[in-house]
């Protein structure tokens, strides 16, 4: 089992004139440390084929029902992780306590593989 490291990503959002309007910080997981078969099982992304979307559009139209649309706010921040996960904190952060080295993950998007497995299956 690999320990998944984290990294802070800082990004400045600019408007049309190139003036910085927002500073964004995001804690990301170094998911590339995971190995298939050891840390996760089969993974897949729920991406529909564009033909499937068009087929649904045509079918809905021809059988006369309305289609609606919704959007999950930030795809990966939802769903709880069932198992207990620890993630290694970024060494950049000055930590005094040994325990601070780890973040206990409960509702974070750190383990995308597990999250997709648990949260997004119907």
């Amino acid at each position, binding site marked *: 089992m690999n320990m998944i490291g984290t990294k802070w990503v800082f990004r400045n959002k600019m408007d049309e004139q190139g003036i910085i309007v927002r500073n964004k910080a995001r804690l990301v997981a170094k998911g590339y440390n995971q190995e298939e078969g050891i840390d996760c099982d089969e993974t*897949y992304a729920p991406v529909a084929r564009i033909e499937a979307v*068009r087929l649904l559009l045509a*079918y809905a*139209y021809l059988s006369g*029902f309305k289609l609606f649309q919704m959007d*999950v706010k930030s795809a990966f921040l939802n769903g709880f992780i069932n198992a207990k996960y620890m993630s290694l904190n970024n060494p950049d952060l000055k930590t005094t306590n040994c325990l601070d080295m780890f973040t206990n993950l409960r509702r974070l998007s750190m383990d995308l593989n597990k999250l997709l497995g648990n949260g997004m299956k119907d």
Partner: protein
Amino acid sequence: MDKTLFIKNSENDIILVQVYVDNIIFGSTNELLCQEFVLDMQGEFEMSMMGELNYFLGLQIKQLQNGTNVGLWYLNEVTLNLKGYSYSDFVGCKLDRKSTSGTCHLLGASLISWNSKKQACVALSTTEAKYIAIGSCCAQICWLKQQLSNFGLKVTEVPLFCDNTSAINLTKHPVHHSRTKHIEIRHHFIREQVSNGICEIKFIESEKQLADFLTKPLAKDKFNYLRTELGILDYSNIA
């Protein structure tokens, strides 16, 4: 089985939910099922309800560069039949002498999928080139058929239109002669599908072949004709 399509049947009604990562489109024959689904989802996840579908993954593209409003329209037609068109040129590529397949599929009068792809191997005759194209057209039909059966719609033999009679005959009678015996086994996939009744290969005149424009440039009149036939219409002519 499509892992991005979720279906729920209750009595005579059905709700279909198509997921694209965090975007969801859904519709139901019964409005109540939709409302129920919305509440369920909002309880579980933080959702933004976007309302009636009007823009999805850039599917509504309004303007082309030349300033005309041309788009794909799904016009009113009540028939729910699936059709496939398959066409191929012969030795379209001057470099490696491979041919190009062009296929398109319509549900009623609505264009659903299309494909224009250089074939993976060199064809020795037009018949062979068309035969390969029919094969890939049929593979797509199999998938569309499965998807439609998930929607609760049973389609029987799907007509697949081809403009080459010898290729059609080749799909029906497993004859081997000197000009065709080298055609690879995988292209004979189509034969099995025909004998299983998945699709039915039909002849169509070249003039009415809708997949014609997928393999080569055409004269303006013919191009415009095919474009209209496929439901790619000028917005200003409709509204």
